[in-house]
Every structure is written in structure tokens, then in C-alpha cells.
């Protein structure tokens, strides 16, 4: 069986700066993969390559066995690749329910969009429930807190029904409680989805990660279980080289 996602020899050059340098990255069906690395390692660039926001200078991206390099962003969503952003971008003028409904409706024929939404579809109801946003369904997304926005984003992703979910720092800026809830949400989603998560937070990683990929300066440094990665001297060096105390706390403890 082929892997769900296969990134092969991908390099990205922005104005002479190599954001990614010959990266090979494979994710199998059903995996929960964490992507870590210091700032500027190329994590978000890799996600951008997979979702079509950035075009690779060289290399190929294959999804479910076929090369998708030429596909535009919305076409990749239609193939089943969904993502969230580091800074959540929900539609503030629309209600929580409308945000979710829009995310769930993209496979409808355009003409049917001319009809008004009537009630709540099953998919949307499920997303509301999973993210526990049911009580806020009728509120405009603009009034949500930071954490709630991130959950709404994740909810929109669930409502899309993608086969591969890419989450870019879903717990950044969240309180401890919110982190815990997001972690549960994540494990819940990972049960029946293939998920790639970018995350800095080592605590979070230790608790929820299975396989971890470490990027450093645009290159793939190591891939393995959390323990393997933590024990690897190169990883320690990468983090230690940047900020000794912080990294010591994060990685060695």
C-alpha cells in the first residue's frame, strides 16, 4: 500500500534563501505525525508546499499515489487535504454555525448554494459537538476567544471531512486548560484521520505524539518516536545551540 502523503526531494528557495533543502517526508494512512524544529526550520513552508500555498522549486508532492504539484489550493482541498493556520482565520462576520456550514458545503454543486441553509446538517452538528461549540453556534465568530477560534478552525476542518489534516501550531497562545482540551480533541480526531501537527510545545508533544519528524534549517534532521528524538544528540544540539536553558528545559528534562 502506498503512503497517503509522499514529499520527495522538495526544495524551496525564496530570494536565494533555501527554506527547504531536499526534504523527503512520508506519512502513512492513519498516522498522527508531529513536526517540530526551531523557528525558521521550514515547518510551515512544508505545510504550505503540501497544501499548495507555496510552489516547490524542485521536487514532487504525491497524495494517495498521484503527483499533485500542479493543483491549486482549492483543488487540493477537494482531494481531501485540509489545514489550519498559525493565526486562526475564521470569518468574523459569519456565525460559528455559518462558518462550519460553509466548510461542510464545498462539495455541493454551485447552483445548490443559491438556496438558503435550512437547519443544521449532520456533519456540522458533529463538528459542533466535537469542538463543544454548540452553545456558541449562533454567535458571530468575531466574538470568540483565541482558544475558541482555534477550535472553530479545527471544527471547520472536521466539517470538511478531509483525509489528511494539517494543523499549524494549534495550541500556540492557549492556556493550560485550553491546551489539554485541544490535546483531547486532537487524539479524538486522530482516531479516524491522518493528522500532521506542527508544534513547538514539548510538554504537549510528550503527551500526545507518536511519531515525530524534526526539521532543522530546511533539512530533515531525524524521524522517530518521541523518546528516540529526545535522546538524539543532534536534536539536543539544535535546540541547545539556539537557547541553552530553554532547550535544556524542553528537551532534556
Amino acid at each position: 500500500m502506498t503512503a497517503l502523503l509522499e514529499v520527495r526531494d522538495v526544495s524551496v528557495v525564496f530570494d536565494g534563501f533555501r527554506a527547504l533543502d531536499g526534504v523527503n517526508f512520508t506519512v502513512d494512512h492513519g498516522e498522527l505525525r508531529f513536526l517540530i524544529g526551531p523557528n525558521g526550520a521550514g515547518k510551515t513552508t512544508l505545510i504550505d508546499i503540501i497544501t499548495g500555498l507555496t510552489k516547490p522549486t524542485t521536487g514532487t508532492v504525491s497524495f494517495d499515489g498521484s503527483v499533485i504539484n500542479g493543483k491549486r489550493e482549492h483543488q487540493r482541498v477537494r482531494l481531501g487535504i485540509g489545514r489550519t493556520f498559525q493565526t486562526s482565520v475564521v470569518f468574523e462576520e459569519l456565525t460559528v454555525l455559518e462558518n462550519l456550514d460553509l466548510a461542510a458545503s464545498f462539495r455541493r454543486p454551485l447552483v445548490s448554494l443559491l438556496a438558503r441553509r435550512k437547519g443544521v446538517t449532520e456533519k456540522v452538528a458533529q463538528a459542533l459537538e466535537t469542538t463543544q461549540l454548540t452553545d456558541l453556534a449562533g454567535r458571530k465568530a468575531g466574538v470568540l476567544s483565541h482558544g475558541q477560534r482555534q477550535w472553530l478552525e479545527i471544527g471547520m476542518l472536521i466539517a470538511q471531512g478531509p483525509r489528511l489534516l494539517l494543523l499549524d501550531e494549534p495550541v500556540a497562545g492557549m492556556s493550560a486548560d485550553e491546551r489539554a482540551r485541544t490535546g483531547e480533541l486532537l487524539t479524538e480526531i486522530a482516531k479516524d484521520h491522518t493528522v500532521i501537527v506542527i508544534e513547538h510545545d514539548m510538554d504537549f508533544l510528550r503527551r500526545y505524539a507518536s511519531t515525530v519528524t524534526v526539521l532543522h534549517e530546511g533539512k530533515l534532521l531525524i524521524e522517530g518516536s518521541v523518546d528516540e528524538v529526545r535522546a538524539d544528540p543532534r536534536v539536543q544540539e539544535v535546540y541547545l545551540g539556539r537557547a541553552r536553558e530553554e532547550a535544556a528545559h524542553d528537551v532534556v528534562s
Partner: protein
Amino acid sequence: MTATLEKPPVTEAPVKEPRDWRGPALFALVAVIGLVVMPLVLEPFRLGLLAKYLTYAIVALGIGLAWGQGGMLTLGQGVFFGLGGYAMGMHLKLNDAGDGLPDFMVWSGVETLPALWEPFRNPVFAIAMVVVVPGAVAWLLGTLVFRQRVRGAYFAILTQALAAAMVILLVGQQGLTGGTNGLTNFFEFFGQDVAADSTQRGLYFTVAIVLGILFIAAWQLQRSRFGRLLLAVRDGEDRVRFLGYNPATVKTITFTLSAVMAGIAGALFVPVVGIISPALLGVVPSLELVVAVAVGGRFALAGAVLGAVLMGYAKTYFSEELPDAWLYLQGALFILVIGLAPKGIIGFLRRKDVAA
């Protein structure tokens, strides 16, 4: 399925979506005023003016849809207004001329009817072109530019340039288009004397009803999933791509609809006012309508219509009373609205409504 059937108390109770009757009630009130009160109260000349403002309101409705809902600042709606207007004007001219040539062609020394004109003899063809030509031009433009992610100020400038180009094109083709004078001196409108009070009265009702129908259509569109999607495109086009939609398609459709509205407005304008000329569809009239929409309130369709009618009245009033002041007043009003009430008059009224 059973899972959702059990859910209604959970999902529907907190999702308060009551039917708001104030909108439809207000619409009905305005319809009564427009269709009953105004024709009774206003003398023919004033009713004709109102009919003219209502044709502008149709253009404004389209601007409200494209700009207010879709974020496409279109500064060249005059182009589509003109295309619709000329299509209608050409038919009326040919109808008046009978077997001969339209008067301005004779004066320009044109001896045979240009091939472009011939099909406009047929009223059905002419009316179809009122919709088809503006729609096709907008569709083509939208397809070309929105795919390339041309937006914001660049799109605005592009549409304005289109309006300027249209004027140059029309003025340059004296024998074909009537040049600067445009098409005027119409006598008959579908078998009736176009200048007769009864014809003008009928035209007023036609314009009002067409506006009403288009308003309801736009209102429905706004409330549909497509309308929600349009708002999403306005507020976060790049995010919409990651929801699996192509924003270029959404924008092209909306822009085309707004152009069709402007085309219909132009076609109605011709018999109501009796002329279509480059001065009526260039950069300035196009901008004036955008200002009117901003003043009325661009985020609400009703605001666009209100703005067009109010600015129409204001323009007439001040042009009659203080001819020199109007331009300054218009500018000042625009600045005031943008500065103090960015949501326009409607936004201002609604704010009070919420506070009360």
C-alpha cells in the same frame, strides 16, 4: 441520521435564528410608497426624476452586491450601464428611423446601416443584448483578472480605466455611436409616444417593479449559502481557498450579476430620460454611484438603494438651488460618511436601533 434526529434540542435551541419580519415589512411599506403614494403625489416631471433615480438605484444595488458583499470595488459600472443603454437606444433609434437611417448617421454622412446595428431592429434581440452584453463583458473580465488574483485597488483602477476607455471608444465612433451626443431624440417606445405622460407613468412603474424584483433576488442571494460564501471571500479570500472553493468563480459570478443589473438599469434609463451618451457612463457617473452606495451604507443592499435615491434627490435639489455647491457638498458628504459612519446611513440607523 438517527443521531441528528435526536439532536434538535441540542443544536437548534442555542442556534437562535428567528424569522425577522421587520425587513419584509419595511420592504412592503416602501413598495406601497413607491407604487401607490408617489404616483399619486408627484407631478409627472417629478415622477420622471424619481424614475431616473430608481434606475440609478438598480446600478447601486449591483454595486452593493459586488462591493459591499463581495469586496470588489468597481469604479466602472457606467460601462455596463452604457452597454445596456446603447443596446436599448439603438433599437429605439432604428424603430424611429423606419426604413431610413437614424438621424445622427445621416448628419455624419453614413450611407448604409452598419452591420452591428442591423440585428437591433429586432426588439427581442435588443432586450436580450441588454442583459447578455454587459454580462459577457463582466464575465470575461472577471475570468481574466480574478484568476490572476487581481483585487483591491488594482481591480478598482482597472474598472475605472475600462470606463475611461469606453468613453473614448464611443466618442471616437461618431457615425456608429453618435459620438459625444450619444443617442437621443427618441419618439416611440414600443408603440407609444415616449414623451407622453401616460408612457412615462408606465415607465415609472416598470422601473420600480424591476428594482423591486432585483432587490428581492439580491436579498435572497445574500441570505443563501452563496451569499455567506461571498462575505467569506470578501473578508478572507485566501482562507476560502482552503475551504475548497475557488474565490475567482464566486467573484466572477457576482461581478457578472452586478453588471447585468447595471445593463438593465441603462436600458430603462434611455426611455425614461430620453438620452444615452458618453457623459452619462464615464468615470464621474460611475464614481458618483459608488459614493452614493457608500453614503447609503454599502454593507446593506437597502443602503445602496437608499444612497442612490437620496444622492439623486440631493444632486437635483442642489443643482437647482446652489449649482456651484453640489460638487463640494458631494465630496464633503463622502468624507463625512467614510470618517464618521463607515457603514453609511443604514449603519447609523441600525446602530441607534441596537442601542435603543
